[in-house]
Structure formats: structure tokens, C-alpha cells
């Protein structure tokens, strides 16, 4: 019954999108962070999606392949009074781009809703199939 694997496929997408939302949350939370525990400024993270086979009949699910760190240089702000300032008086902030993150957030939440709706439809169809003959 191939309709059952819809739940697996859409479920994998929902979980991948929620992980993307998590990454966005941590990026936005650290948008103004100056330095982490290791003395380095926070680097924006991105999830990498990958198609993964789902079920025996070749369904196309999705999974998070990796979480990568953006290597763009951090924002440098001239704040000589800040204890984290370097010799020239510059403080390195995280390299999070708030606009990009907001876009990511909206895109992830829409994709999440989309997949939930797919699951709802599949559930309704399966319920109607169960009622066949009554």
C-alpha cells in the first residue's frame, strides 16, 4: 500500500525543515554574539538537504546531510572600549545575515505547513479507503 509511505516521505521532510528552523533560531539568537567559548565569533550555520530513498518502492524522502558553517568574515565594528576589541579597537561580531535568516525561516515554515497538509490529505484518503464498503 504505497499511500502509507507518504507519511514516511512527508515526515522526513517535516523533520528536515524543523531542523532547518532550529538552525535559523540559533543563528538569529547569535546574530549579535561577539565571541563563543573558544574565543572565535559565532559562524552562521546552514543545513544541507539531500534526497534519500524512502520505503521499498523508491519513494523520495529528504534528510539533512550536513550542517555547514558559513566562512564569510564576521562583521567588524569599531568599539575600542569593548574588552573583546583587538589591537586596532575593532570587535568581530558573528557573520549572521539577519535578512537571509528571516527568508530561511519563512521558507522553512511554509515548507513545513505544505508537508503537514500532504500528510493530512493522505490520512483522509486512507480513512476513506478504510470505510470502503460500509
Amino acid at each position: 500500500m504505497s499511500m502509507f509511505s507518504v507519511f514516511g516521505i512527508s515526515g522526513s521532510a517535516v523533520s528536515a525543515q524543523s531542523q532547518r528552523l532550529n538552525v535559523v533560531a540559533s543563528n538569529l539568537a547569535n546574530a549579535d554574539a561577539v565571541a563563543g567559548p573558544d574565543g572565535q565569533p559565532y559562524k552562521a550555520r546552514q543545513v544541507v538537504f539531500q534526497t534519500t530513498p524512502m520505503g521499498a518502492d523508491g519513494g523520495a524522502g529528504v534528510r539533512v546531510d550536513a550542517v555547514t558553517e558559513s566562512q564569510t568574515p564576521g562583521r567588524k565594528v569599531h568599539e575600542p572600549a569593548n574588552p573583546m576589541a583587538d589591537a586596532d579597537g575593532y570587535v568581530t561580531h558573528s557573520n549572521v545575515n539577519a535578512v537571509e535568516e528571516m527568508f530561511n525561516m519563512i521558507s522553512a515554515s511554509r515548507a513545513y505547513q505544505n508537508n503537514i497538509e500532504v500528510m493530512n490529505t493522505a490520512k483522509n484518503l486512507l480513512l476513506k479507503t478504510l470505510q470502503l464498503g460500509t
Partner: protein
Amino acid sequence: MLDKLTNAMDFHTKALVLRSERQRVIAGNIANADTPGFAARDSNFADALREASGSSGGTYSTASLAGTASAGANGVSHPRHIPLGSGSGGSASGGADGEQGYVVQTQPRLDGNSVDLDRERAAFADNAVRYEATLRFINGQGKTMLAAITGQ
């Protein structure tokens, strides 16, 4: 005797299986709407159904199900024409012989993903409605048979 009762239903059950198969494929497309490099798949329902019910030779004609009723098996009117999938730009290319084809892109994306979310949503809703319609056909036929058996 018994196969005469079930033969008529057989066509619709095959259609139902194909509908649920297509529902799964479209769900996979929607799930991978953000996956870089993913190629959207779809199947030509008319061709798939013709192939599924061709050998059994049910009482229903599947030829009229295709968008081009007078066309040949691959939607071409001449054996030397190159098949183009089914008509409108929104459908799968290839996909002859009932197997899955790749969706033709209308607006290419930079990340190599060929999922058109609007179209997939439309196809999903359309397929869901048709699945339900097939269910009702089966239900109705079951009721008809039951009425015949019971005898009024």
C-alpha cells in the same frame, strides 16, 4: 461466475493503486522542494492505466482516457513522430509505457531543483480528488452488486 462479478471492479482497483502510487510520487516531490539538484518525477496516468489494464481486457475502454483520444500509444499520430509526453507543458516528459518520467521545468532554478511547488500542490489536490472518486466508483459498484444479490 465469480470473476464476472469482480471483473468490473478490477478496472477501478487498478486505477486506485495507480492513484495512490502517483500520490506517493507527488508527496516525494513536495518533500524535496528545497533539496538542491532534485529532479521532480511524475507519471502519465493514462499510459500507466492502459498498461495495467491492457492484458486483462476489462469492459472499459482506456483509450478515451488519454488527452489525445485518437493518438497512438505514446500520444503521437504517426509511428515516426517523436513522443513528447502528454501535451501541456506541465506534464512529465517520457513516462511512456506507464513508467515515471521527469517533470519539464517551466522556470529553472539556480540550485538545479526542478520542483514547481504550485504545480505539485495542484497535482496533489487533483490526484486526491480523483482517488476519492475512484473509491466512490468501487463503493457504488459494491452496493449495486449487493442489491442484485439481495433481490428486492
